[in-house]
């Protein structure tokens, strides 16, 4: 279609906008936001006559490249260190994608402007594409990569894993609770507009550097749909801003969504990019450098700041604090260390760091070695079974952390940890912003105003709870993270596939039992708890016990 006929076609399909005459559609999803009905322009200007062939063409390129990668024996050059982390990433990401599809009709109802619904429906179609194309990519890895274990059962594993549920926020957060909080602010305004750059651009770049050009082919194609979704979000945001009553809610939701996305996405993607790569060229950007460019400059300065003049209250403090966490408090390094501490309870293999890695980290993050170097040397030392336990049960100057009740990433920056009794339960939070999210934001009233549509944080949010008092071997068997010989673990703390070097259930059987930090916290007396908090806040960095000087 020519540009001119496309414009005319788009103009024409506006005639489809429906004004109910006899029955209003059933309102299934509520919001506390208010929208005034006003004629709006469809920001997407997309007509299916050109959309479908365009998407088909993109597909042809993706599937053509996939065939080429396999015919060209791509897997002879793929870094296992990298591909192992894809077992986690590709078990998470199809769910957020499909959840984004599912969330779109929540917006039809909340935003009464039929002109915008067209764009939301197209986003729904895009998201079905993303989810299934990613499931397909994972299938290709499973079929062609040396070690299929962990790919072949991802959709079971991801839900029982030691850190998988953290990723589920980035899906359930889109589809549950106040429709605008979920499907617009959390999904579109923050997750898609701010964080998909690290997901879908930085990740593929790192994949390519590790010999994997399948991931870039798929994810660049996915990212090419993203600008449409960003326009959807922007249109809704401007409408929300036009009603003064919404500003308080917008402020609340931006704070929550920003902080939660930072906690979750930076934890996962930061770890993949910094610890999942073999590319240690000094001039390749670190995650912190990418973050500064894409999230701080492109999103915060170029997208959010200009919205201030429309009355948007921007969480400047939390944005600066996120940077502070990444740059000064070692957020990504602490998370990677935590993932590796509990390698036994994962379903992928985590490679140890070598001298070359150490050098790169020290160059990119001065002071890294003093904080984390020793621990990774211990990780390497304990990586082959040799009469000792897995690192989680060995004394390596690491205090096993408490989980954050809100973001579910543990409280790794120990000095920031806070506790609060909420809903009758003592809970630990990684940061005051996470405490606020649970105790203040996700409540039926907010700053004295009724917010009857706001969602709730529910579920067994601490992984250790279900396995409190269990033997590690039983835990791993219960989760199903065992290979087809019935005893070798799916996860390993190294990349050596020699069966003699691999850990088995027998090794796990000898380790001390799993204990839930939250169960223990709730058994403490007030004074014990106060002492616990003081001690915890004095711990770190790198999880070192309080008072430790090394």
């Amino acid at each position, binding site marked *: 279609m020519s540009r001119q006929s496309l414009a*005319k*076609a788009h103009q024409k399909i506006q005639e*489809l906008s*429906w004004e109910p005459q*006899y*029955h209003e*559609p*059933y309102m*299934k999803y509520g919001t506390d936001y208010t929208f005034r009905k006003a004629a709006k322009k469809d920001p997407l200007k997309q007509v*299916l*006559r050109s959309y*479908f062939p365009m*998407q088909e063409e993109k*597909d042809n390129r993706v*599937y053509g490249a996939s065939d080429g990668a396999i015919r060209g024996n791509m*897997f002879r*050059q*793929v*870094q296992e260190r990298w591909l192992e982390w894809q077992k986690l990433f590709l078990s998470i990401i199809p769910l957020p994608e*499909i959840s984004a599809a599912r969330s*779109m009709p929540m917006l039809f109802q909340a935003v009464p402007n039929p002109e915008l619904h067209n764009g939301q429906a197209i986003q*729904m179609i895009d998201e*079905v*594409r993303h*989810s*299934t194309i990613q*499931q*397909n990519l994972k299938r290709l890895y*499973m*079929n062609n990569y*040396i*070690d*299929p*274990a962990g790919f*072949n059962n991802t*959709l*079971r594993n991801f*839900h*029982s894993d030691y850190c998988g*549920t953290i990723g*589920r926020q980035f899906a359930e957060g889109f589809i*549950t*609770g106040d429709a605008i909080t979920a499907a617009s602010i959390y999904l579109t305004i923050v997750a898609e507009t701010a964080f998909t750059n690290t997901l879908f651009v930085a990740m593929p770049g790192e994949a390519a550097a590790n*010999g994997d050009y399948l991931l870039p082919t798929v994810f660049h194609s996915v990212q090419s749909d993203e600008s449409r979704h960003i326009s959807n979000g922007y249109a809704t945001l401007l409408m929300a801003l036009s009603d003064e009553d919404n500003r308080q809610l917008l402020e609340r939701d931006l704070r929550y969504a920003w902080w939660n996305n930072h906690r979750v996405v930076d934890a996962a993607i930061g770890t993949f990019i910094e610890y999942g790569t073999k590319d240690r060229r000094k001039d390749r950007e670190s995650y912190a450098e990418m973050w500064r460019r894409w999230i701080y400059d492109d999103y915060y300065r170029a997208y959010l700041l200009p919205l201030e003049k429309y009355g948007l209250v921007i969480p400047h403090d939390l944005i600066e604090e996120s940077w502070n966490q990444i740059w000064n408090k070692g957020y990504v390094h602490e998370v990677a260390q935590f993932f590796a501490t509990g390698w036994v309870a994962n379903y992928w293999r985590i490679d140890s760091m070598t001298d070359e890695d150490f050098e790169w980290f020290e160059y990119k993050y001065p002071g890294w070695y003093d904080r984390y170097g020793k621990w990774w040397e211990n990780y390497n030392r304990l990586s082959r079974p040799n009469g000792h336990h897995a690192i989680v049960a060995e004394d390596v100057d690491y205090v096993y952390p408490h989980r954050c009740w809100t973001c579910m990433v543990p409280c790794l920056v120990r000095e920031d940890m806070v506790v609060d009794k909420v809903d009758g339960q003592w809970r630990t939070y990684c940061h005051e912003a996470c405490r606020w999210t649970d105790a203040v934001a996700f409540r039926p009233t907010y700053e004295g105003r009724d917010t009857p*549509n706001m969602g*709730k*944080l529910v*579920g*067994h*949010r601490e992984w250790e709870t*279900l396995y409190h008092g269990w033997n590690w071997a039983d835990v791993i068997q219960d*989760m*199903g993270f065992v*290979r087809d010989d019935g005893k*070798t673990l*799916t996860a390993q703390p190294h990349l050596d*596939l*020699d069966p003699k070097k691999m850990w088995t259930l027998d090794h796990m059987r000898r380790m001390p039992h799993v204990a*839930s930090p939250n*169960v223990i916290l709730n058994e403490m007396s007030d004074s014990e708890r106060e002492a616990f908090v003081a001690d915890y806040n004095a711990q770190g960095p790198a999880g070192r016990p309080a008072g430790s000087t090394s």
Partner: protein
Amino acid sequence: MTTTENSARSVPKPTFTDAEAGAKEFPDSGPSARRYNYYKPAKRKQTHYEDVTVEVQPDPRHYLTQGWIYGFADGSRGYPLDWTKLKAWGVDNPEPERGPGSGGKPVQDWPAHGWHEFRDPNEEWELTMFRYNANVERQIGQNVENARNAKAFDQWTQNWVRFVERHVGAWMHIEHIFGLYIFAACNRSGPTNMHNTAMAVNSEHKIRFAQDLALYNLTLTEEIEGFDGAAHLDAWNNDAEWQGVRKVAEALTAVDDDWGEMIFGTNIVFEPLLGELFRSNLVQQAAPGNGDYVTPTVMGAGEYDFAQRDLRWTQACMGLLTQDKEFADHNKQIMQGWLSHWVPQCLDAARQLQPLWSQPDAKPPRFEDSLDRAKNRFAGILSDLGLDAPKELSQ
């Protein structure tokens, strides 16, 4: 010309890793480990479609051991099974109770309940849906373009021009409403990823077809002198003939919190009794006699969507429920109730459409014959599902 190495150029170096399937032997290196092993396929062999859809939407009765982590204000979570009155075997069994020290309690007897038995017989996922819809769009585009070049619209009589501008045009609104406010709307509600994906794909057909009709209308406005491109809005908003259909279509979007009724009411009742009545038994039949060979190709695409795809998945979905090993009777009773509710409204709307049959110069088959055909087809669909034709059908 000579090439010089740019010394400043920094690129990652490829390394031989030999990380290819089969390079080493170790537990899980064999071919049997190279399949998604967390679900049971419907047939002996698991399909590509199943691999990319099954279990993507989790279920606390399967592997969601920590449970849903966000709830709505009313406490409901995830994808509640009671968002329809229909039931599948096993749903009344309690969800596993988990807590401190309980372990994960993953599913032992997958699928744990009958909803997970549904598979879309069209096996739709992204590859198929883009191929299908892109093909339809190309085909329609070419047909209309050929007709334009052949001056095919010149043969239309004035009456037929009026018929197409008003009534064929009015139909686009129905498709649009269903596309967005039934099928897209329900893609958040279904109990499994297979249901929700099938509904999303159904939505694509509807939205596309609505736009096809709108773009066709635009072409005719440009090609036929005096063709009024806004007449469809007037017909839709004001013609007495259309108000009955509009009322039922709108009522379907207003169904009180039951995605099953919305889908059943639309694809099992409305589509055969009104959709096919209008599209197949009126437009497709009347067009050739009035010198119009083009409209049937546009309408035909929508007919094909429904008859070959959308009805098919809906029958598969509802058919499982009417044969459910635990709730067949419950489901049939619910569906019979829906039939008693929607059939009279649809027949009423059909009768309001009747004057359309006498508008073209070359008349289509009689209205009563057209309606009988639609009723027969409808009765056949019901008997396939094991449902009784409601008494209202014979009125």
